[in-house]
């Protein structure tokens, strides 16, 4: 995980539903075991955390500013899920 956040897409303008769509699209395209990262707002963070954790993803969230969070998603491998 890089500390340079300038390369991470900022999705803080997206609505929660569109954010979910965008992340699902990125995760679908991402190679096995790779990380998908983005910057989101506080309310968006809440809508990512539970749904993605529940459906087989490792979700890591780090606060980078008052209302900006860095989200990292990675698909758990099948052994971790089971």
């Amino acid at each position, binding site marked *: 995980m890089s500390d340079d956040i300038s390369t991470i897409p900022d999705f803080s303008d997206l*609505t*929660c539903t569109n954010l979910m769509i965008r992340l699902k699209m990125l995760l679908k395209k991402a190679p096995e075991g790779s990380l998908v990262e983005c910057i989101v707002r506080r309310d968006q963070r809440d809508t990512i955390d539970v749904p993605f954790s529940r459906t087989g993803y490792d979700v890591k969230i780090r606060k980078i500013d008052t209302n900006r969070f860095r989200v990292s998603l990675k698909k758990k491998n099948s052994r971790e899920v089971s």
Partner: protein
Amino acid sequence: MSSHFFLFNESMNSERLGWVEQCLKFFFIKLHPENLLHSTKNRQAVFTLFLSGDALHSLHNPETLSLWEVILSLPCVTIVCDSQELALRGISVERLRMKNPDQVIIHNSLALNGRPSFWKDVMKLARQHEQPVPSLVGFLHLTSPYMNRSSAALLEGMNAALEIHASVDLYCYLDGVHVGHDGQKPTEFENIGEGLEAVFEKAAKRGLSCQMLACARCAAARGYSTWDDGKGTAISSCTIKPIKIRNLNEIIDQFRRNHIILSDNCASIQLKKEGMQATFSVLDRERSPPLTILITRHPYGTESAFGGLSLALAAAAHGVPTQVIFIEDGIYALTGTQIPDAGSPLFNMQEVIDAISGTDNLQLFCFTPSLQKRGMTKNQKLTGVLNISISEFGNLLFYSPNGVAANHQRVILF
């Protein structure tokens, strides 16, 4: 009495009426053949088809008239026409009425003002789904006023709900957010903004709840949101007072309650199982009615298909069992290989569909007769979208998904 109903307001072509007819046949022949064995003369309606607006033209169009005759030959089917809209359009349904006088209703119940009200008839059926009274009726509105007469129908529907002492919710989505713009001054049309403010005041006077929520994404796109608190609440200086701009999640949260939600073109299918109460409290969130969204329009040309898909995903994320059926022109979202311009902010619908397939509480289907009618095939990469024929469509409509304890299923056409 069972009370499945369809409500159609926009123009109905033979394709739409065709699948309605096929679904009804499936219901009576495959699921309830006992209804075919006896005289239907003294039975109450199992299916009510409410027709208003341009849908009424299908009653005298030769292409659809024959389908209506087949539908009316089925037992326990009633058509309730909006008498004012019939008169406005100069449509005669005498031919159908001559053959089926008890099944084609052209005289509506009287409202408190003494005038016939189609919406009073709709409300009578709509509120049978929950108890205790006073109940709640929701309206999902998708179209702009003045361009579409459906906004006038919305006002009539909300007023009719208040007349039967039901609280009302309005969910403005897509172009539906325009009904809440302030300063509307139509010269040849009922003022929708003022009408909504009057509904809000009338509800308050009667001690009924009335909330009007507009989708924040749709409002922002159309220039309404002037201040956003970043937590789902946006405040606009150009909406009428009753309208609250809220995140779609907050609107979808209302869908978890057990009330009827009406839209321009929608249906409500009862899901009563053996031993289950016929009615539940409107606040019973454990019994969220499953949601079926029919995507009937081309992708890209309008926001309709994407809007339907977004709503479905939001509902599924809130734990509402949701199924999306691509049907009629909606199947074009699944055909060919779609490639939006690389720099375009537009979502690639096929990528969206592929990405969201497999989401909890969400199932995606393609109605194959619509593909066949257009000589198209589904993109083979969309493996998460299951092909269905009319019998599977019927099963999806009339059987509740596993584990669902709701008493009805909401069907909304986009």
